[in-house]
C-alpha cells in the first residue's frame, strides 16, 4: 500500500493573480476509493485549486501527479484520457441531445471513435449507456431531450457521463449546489456507493457542511489560499483554527452559502 504512489498527489500548488495569492503551496494526496472534501470559506481558493487539477488553469509552480505521472499543465481532455471524470458546479451537458446520446458521446470518445464517419452512433454501446444510466437512476429518461430535465436529474446525468471512461478519479465541483436537500443526500449517497464499489477516488468541493461531514472520509480546509487543516471529519470539526475561520460566516453547520466568483 505504502509503496504504490497515491492516486492523486498534489505538491506545493501555487497560483497568483496580479499581487493576490489565490493558492499558496497547497499539498495533499488522495487514495483510490477515498472520498476527500475540499472546503473553505468564499475566496479561499477552492475553485482555483480545482481548476488546476483538471487542467482548466495552469499553476505558477507545484505539481499534480496522477498515479505517479505528472499531469501539471495538461489540457482538460488529456487529463480525462488518463482516467479523470468530472462534474461542473453549473451543469454542462449537450442540451439538444437526448440523455442516452449524452452518455454515448462520452463512450464514443472513450472508444476513440470520434472520427468514425460511417458507423451508427444511435447503436453505439447502447448497452453500456443503458447500464450507466441505470446506475445513476436515470434509466427511464434515456430518450428524453436533455434540455427538458430538472436540475437534479442533470446532475445525475453528469455523473453518468463522468463515469463513462471508467475513471480512477472523480472531480466534482460543488456537486449538490442548487439542489433540494433531499436530492443532495441521494446524489452524495449514490456517489459514495459507486466510488466504494469501483474503488474510485473522489475529490469534491462543497458548501453544505451536512453533506461534507456525512460523506467525506477526509476533509482538507483552505483559507486564503493556504491549507490550514486536514483530517477526518471529527478532527476537522474540532479544529479551533477551522472554527475561527468559519465563525465569520456563522456557525460551522450553517455555512451553506454558495460560492460566488472563484478566488
Amino acid at each position, binding site marked *: 500500500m505504502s509503496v504504490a504512489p497515491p492516486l492523486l498527489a498534489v505538491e506545493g500548488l501555487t497560483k497568483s493573480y496580479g499581487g493576490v495569492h489565490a493558492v499558496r503551496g497547497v499539498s495533499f494526496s488522495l487514495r483510490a476509493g477515498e472520498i476527500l472534501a475540499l472546503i473553505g470559506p468564499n475566496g479561499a481558493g477552492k475553485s482555483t485549486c480545482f481548476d488546476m487539477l*483538471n487542467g482548466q488553469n495552469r499553476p505558477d509552480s507545484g505539481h499534480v501527479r496522477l498515479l505517479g505521472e505528472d499531469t501539471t499543465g495538461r*489540457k*482538460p*481532455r488529456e487529463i*480525462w*484520457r488518463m482516467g479523470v471524470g*468530472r462534474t*461542473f458546479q453549473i451543469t*454542462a*451537458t*449537450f*442540451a*439538444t*441531445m*437526448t440523455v442516452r*446520446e449524452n452518455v*454515448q*458521446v*462520452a463512450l*464514443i*470518445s*472513450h472508444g476513440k*471513435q*470520434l*472520427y*468514425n*464517419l*460511417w*458507423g*451508427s*452512433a*444511435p447503436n*453505439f454501446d447502447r448497452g453500456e449507456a443503458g447500464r450507466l444510466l441505470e446506475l445513476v437512476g436515470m434509466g427511464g429518461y434515456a*430518450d428524453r*431531450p*436533455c*434540455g*427538458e430535465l430538472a436540475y437534479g436529474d442533470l446532475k445525475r446525468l453528469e455523473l453518468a*457521463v463522468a463515469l*463513462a*471512461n471508467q475513471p480512477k478519479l472523480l472531480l466534482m465541483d460543488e456537486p449538490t449546489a442548487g439542489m433540494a436537500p433531499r436530492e443532495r443526500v441521494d446524489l452524495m449517497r449514490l456517489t459514495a456507493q459507486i466510488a466504494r464499489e469501483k474503488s474510485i477516488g473522489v475529490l469534491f468541493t462543497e458548501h453544505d457542511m451536512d453533506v461534507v461531514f456525512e460523506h467525506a472520509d477526509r476533509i482538507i480546509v483552505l483559507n486564503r489560499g493556504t491549507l490550514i487543516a486536514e483530517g477526518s471529519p471529527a478532527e476537522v470539526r474540532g479544529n479551533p483554527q477551522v472554527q475561527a475561520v468559519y465563525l465569520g460566516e456563522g456557525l460551522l453547520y450553517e455555512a451553506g452559502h454558495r460560492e460566488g466568483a472563484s478566488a
Partner: protein
Amino acid sequence: MAFYVVQFLTGLASAASLFLVASGLSIIFGVTRIVNFAHGAFYMIGAYVAFTLTERLSGAFGFWGAIVIAAFAVALIGVLVEMVLLRRIYHAPELFQLLATFGLTLMVEDLVVLIWGPDDLVGRRAPGFKGAIDFFGQNIPSYDLFLIVLGPVVLGILWLLFQRTRWGVLVRAATQDRDMVAALGVNQKWLFTSVFAVGVFLAALGGALQIPRDAVHHAMDLRIIVEVFVVVVIGGLGSIIGAFVAAVLVSELNAFGILIFPKISIILVFLVMAAVLIVRPWGLFGRPEAPARKTPGLTVNPWRPLTSNERLAALAALVIAATLPLFAGNYALTVGSEIAISVIFAVSLHFLMSVGGLASFGHAAYFGLGAYGVAFLAKMAGLPMIVCLLLGPLLGCMGAAVFGFFAVQLSGVYFAMLTLAFAQIVWSIAFQWVSVTGGDNGILGVWPSSWAASPSHFYWLSLGVAALVTIALRAMVFSPFGYALRATRDSLLRSEAVGINAKRIQWTAFVIAGTTAGIGGALFAYLKGSVFPDNLGISLSVDALVMVLLGGVETVSGAVIGAIVYKALNIWLVSQTDLSKLVLGGFIVLIVVVFPKGIVGMLEMLAHRRGKTSPPGSPLLAKPIESAE
C-alpha cells in the same frame, strides 16, 4: 523615398473612413451584441444622401453642412430600423440577427439604384481642399491631409463622449454587463436606440466624407463591410481604440500591398489577420468573449434517423424526380439540374451550420473553388470530365483546410465575419489575378463530355450526385463523428471534459462541408460551361444561408426542402422582376421575424401538436432527394 511617404499618407487618409465605420460597428456590438451587417448599407446611404445634398446646397457652408446633415438624416433612418426591426430580434440567435441585417443590406442596394440610378456618381470636391500639396515632387491631395487629421480628432471626441458624459458611462457599463445596467433602472430601450443612432451616424459620416475622394456607387456597401469586418477582427470587437489601430494597419497594408503583390494585394492583409488570430483570437485590443449564444436555440427537438417508411417515401420522391426528363423540356431540365446542385450546396452548409453550429457567411468560397478547380483541370490540363469532377472539388477541400483552420479558432459572430472575409479574399484573388483566373471575364468553354452533354443526362447526373451527397452527409449526422460534432456545438466545456478535441472536430467538419460544396461547384461549372468570380461571391454564400434557414435550421433535412423551394422561387423571381434583391432582402427579414423555424420546422411543430411524433423528412413535399444511412 518621397513616394513611400506619400503612399503612407494615402493609407492614413483611407483609414479615416474605415475607422468611422468600424468604430460605429464596434459601439453597436458592445451594447446590443448585434453585429450590424447593414452598417455598410448605412455608409452607402450616407454617401448618396451627401451627394444629393452637396449638389443642391452651394458654397463652403453648403458642402460641409450637407455632409453633417446627411449623417444626421441617415442616423434617423437608423433609429427607425432599430425600433421597427432590431427590437424584435435582440433575443434571437445571432445568426438570425446577422441574416436580418444582411437582408436589409440587399434591400438597400436595390432601393439605392431605384432612387439614384445604377451609374457611378462623382461628387463635388471639398471647398478649401481642392488642390494638392507638392511633397518632393509627389502630389498629396490636400483633402487627404484633412482626413488624416480627422481620424484622430473623431477618436478624441469619442473618447471624451465615453469618459465625460453620463450617456458614455452608461454605454461603457452596458458593454460590460447589460443585465446589471438594466437592473439599475436604466431604460434599456432608449439606450440601445441612441447607441444604434450614434453608430449609424458614424457610418454615414464615413460614407459622406468619401464623396470628394471616390465615386459613389451601389456596391460600395459590401466592399466597406468586408474591410470593416477585417478591421474589427484584428482590432477586437467592442474596442474603439482597436478599431482605430486596425483601420490604420489595414489601410497601410492595402497601400503597400499593392507595391509588393500588385496582382493580389489583399494577401498581405490576410496574412496579418491570420497572424493576429493565432496570437490573440479576440483581436489586438479586444477581450475574450463569454461563450457565444448557441446558433440553435429555438426548440429542443432530438434528431433521429428516418424510419423505414420515411426512407421508402424519400426513395419514392427520388424516383419521381428522376422521371422528370420523360415529360419536361430542356429548360426545365436545366433548372432541375441547378436545383439539384443547390441541394448539394445547401446540405453542405447545413452540415457545418446546423450540425456543427458554425454559421459560415462565406461558404460560396468552397463552391467556387470547386468550380475553378474543374475549370483549371479541364482548360489547362485538358483532363476528361470524369477526372475533373473527381479532382476539381479538391481545390475546395484545400481552401477549406487552410481557411477552416483559422476560422474554427473563433465562434459565433467572429466565425461569421471571418468566413465572410475569407470568401471575399478568394473572390478578390479570382477577380484580380487575371492571368490565371481570367478575372472578370472568367474561364469559358468548360463543356461536359458527350455522355453527360444532353440536358437529361446532365440532370440525372446532378440528381444522382445530389442524392448521394445528401445520403452521405445524413449518415454522418448519425455517425459517431456526427455526435461528436453536435457535442461541440452544444457545450464546448463538456466536450473538452470528455476528451474531445473540439477545434479539430470542427475543422474536420469544415473540410467535409467545404469539399462537398466543391462537388456542387464542380457540377455547376459544367452546367454553365463557364466559371466567374460571382461563383464564389457573397450573394451566393447568402443564398446558401437562406436555403438552410428557409428549410429549418434546426432540422436534419430542412436544407433539402429549403434548397428546392428557394432555388425554384429565385429563378422564377429573377425572370419576373428587376428588383430581385429588394424582394429577396424583404423575404429574408420576413423569415427571421415571423417564420424562424423554417418550412420543415413548422411541419414538425404542427405534427407535434397533433400529438404524434413527426418525421423530420416530411415526405409530403415534392421530391425531397434524400434518404437515410
